[in-house]
């Protein structure tokens, strides 16, 4: 029997104690060192969970960022934080990047944060491979407001060129890259922009040797699957738990591919059955997938911490059920 791998994706819920510490730091009531202590403590706790489920891949839980868009401010200059915008159809909001000048790489902060996470992983004796989270160029375009470039393709071109510089430094620290590209399924994106996406991804990964996991979530637009599976990445990720009615179409793309299946719904507290998870993984292999990774379907900010923990533990249960 071919084994599936476990991969923890994106952010883990921030406990309210950490939220309070971040608020206090932002209002100058605690020092940066003190904040780092809180973040380290929470990251260690998260790594314990990762270790318990023997995850093959994980992020660092992304505790220092508000959301996946917020991460971009750690590795790119040229944008400032703007209005709160709704993150898809969730009651969850992010600060829209407002692009005021040419986008430029700034590697130092992001690399240092990842180094700190890697060190904590090592201290916690976690053997999982660490992934660095990067926002995809199309999602960056969709989530930001342009006050500098006049052409959306130019934004994406600069985004991938500059982010490539960041990734070249980041890959010295981490084992894999986790590219979040939920916007690939957004409605209303013009054809000429979509056409550029493969070329943009080639630039993004030019000279990059680290494993590349492309993660999408929520709604799957079947008509964009050709594009998604054409991109130069090692693993293609899809939210299958929210798109069970489209599995027939999705499976057609699995042959010979390494796929990540989002099997834990991070927008509902109802726990999945381990048997459902196992069936999804088994079916993916039956449909010709070369390798199957399973994990949470999307960032975990939308569910309480206790539920996120229970859901992650289900992955271990599913694995023991599958592998015996």
């Amino acid at each position, binding site marked *: 029997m071919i084994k599936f791998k476990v991969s923890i994706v994106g952010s883990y*819920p*921030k406990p*309210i104690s950490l*939220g*309070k510490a*971040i*608020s206090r730091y*932002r209002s100058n009531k605690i020092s940066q060192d003190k904040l780092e202590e809180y973040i380290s403590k929470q990251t260690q706790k998260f790594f314990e969970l990762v270790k318990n489920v023997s995850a093959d891949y994980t992020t660092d839980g992304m505790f220092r960022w*508000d*959301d996946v868009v917020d991460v971009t401010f750690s590795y790119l200059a040229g944008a400032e934080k703007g*209005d*709160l915008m*709704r993150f898809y*159809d969730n*009651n*969850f*909001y*992010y*600060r829209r990047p407002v692009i005021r000048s040419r986008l430029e790489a700034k590697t130092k902060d992001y690399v240092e944060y990842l180094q700190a996470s890697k060190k904590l992983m090592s201290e916690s004796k976690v053997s999982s491979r660490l992934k660095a989270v990067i926002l995809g160029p199309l999602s960056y375009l969709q989530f930001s407001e342009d006050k500098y470039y006049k052409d959306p393709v130019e934004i994406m071109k600069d985004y991938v060129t500059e982010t490539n510089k960041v990734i070249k430094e980041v890959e010295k620290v981490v084992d894999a890259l986790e590219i979040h590209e939920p916007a690939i399924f957004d409605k209303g994106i013009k054809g000429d922009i979509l056409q550029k996406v493969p070329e943009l991804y080639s630039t993004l990964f030019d000279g990059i040797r680290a494993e590349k996991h492309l993660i999408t979530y929520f709604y799957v637009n079947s008509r964009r699957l050709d594009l998604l599976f054409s991109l130069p990445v090692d693993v293609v990720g899809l939210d299958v738990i929210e798109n069970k009615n489209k599995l027939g179409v999705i499976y057609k793309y699995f042959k010979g591919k390494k796929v990540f299946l989002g099997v834990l719904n991070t927008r*509902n*507290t*109802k726990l999945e059955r381990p048997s459902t998870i196992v069936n999804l993984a088994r079916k993916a292999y039956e449909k010709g997938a070369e390798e199957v990774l399973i994990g949470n379907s999307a960032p975990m*900010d*939308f*569910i*309480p*911490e*206790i*539920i996120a923990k229970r859901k992650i533990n289900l992955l271990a249960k599913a694995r023991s059920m599958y592998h015996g």
Partner: protein
Amino acid sequence: MAELPILPTTVIGSYPRPKWLREAIRLHKAGKLDDEEMTEAFNDAALAIMRDHQLAGVDVPTDGEVKRDEMVEFFAERLGGFRFYGPVRVWGTAYYVKPAVVSKVEYKSPLLVDEFLYTKSISYTENVKITITGPYTLAYWSYNEYYKTRQDLAYDLAKVINKELHNLVEAGARIIQIDEPAIHSTKEDVEWAVDVVNESLKGINAKLVMHVCYGDYKIVAPYLNDFKVDQINFALKIYDYEPLELFKKYNYSKEIGVGVIDVHSKRVETPEEVMKDILNTLNYFEPEKVWINPDCGLKLLPRKLAFQKLVSMVKGTQMAREELKKRGYKDTIKL
């Protein structure tokens, strides 16, 4: 029939809790304040907020919803069928407790009648407004572990809300606002969401207002006339009134509550700015159909700032009324 000044001013509902109330809540949670003392503190806070509204000159006040922690949590705590797992973030470091529906939702006892009766007893005007979260938003902002679909859950919630509305009318409520900030979250839902809201309003004899705020109004605009309410109020200041064109396109014909105060900005709008914004709105709506309000609840602002914003809103409205007088409009409208 009661009368109101033309361009009546109102609030959306929530208002910053006084600092001492937050401290009282903390002590109550720690067991250092008993239930009776907590009730007294809540009532005192309602009085203080009502006084703020009176001093600012608001025509249709609320109690600032000071007795409610959050607009979904409050109701979920008091209905059958819900449970709580813990807080979730809504943005940055702001959290709320999102409930989960784990069995059939049930109406156990009145939710807001006591709150309304107290508010009415302390109000400086008979035109007091009571707000209630609508069934679609309650369903949308809860995890659904029990019902087959969100639609099934929302319909059951509509029946529950309808019972509460009947009880409020019986208790004397004459102006009721249904809060549906989630109504335009998912395009595919809107058609049935209209039916759900209307189901919750069946047989309710009161002035009915619906509150809609941040998001894509294009999703709901074609359906606005289908809601069985007298008025819909919107966040408009934050969008620089652009949706007015959209409402015109779809021939929106009910009363409109115009958001003239940005509740996410700490800048206090000037009365002149408010007047200008109101006069701009009158290019789209007859003055008799326009009410004036902030974009949303003022809860997240510092109290002093919330008060200053209300003062500006009322002053700007008074200036607009003067302008209407010159144009030959009557001073008052019927409620």
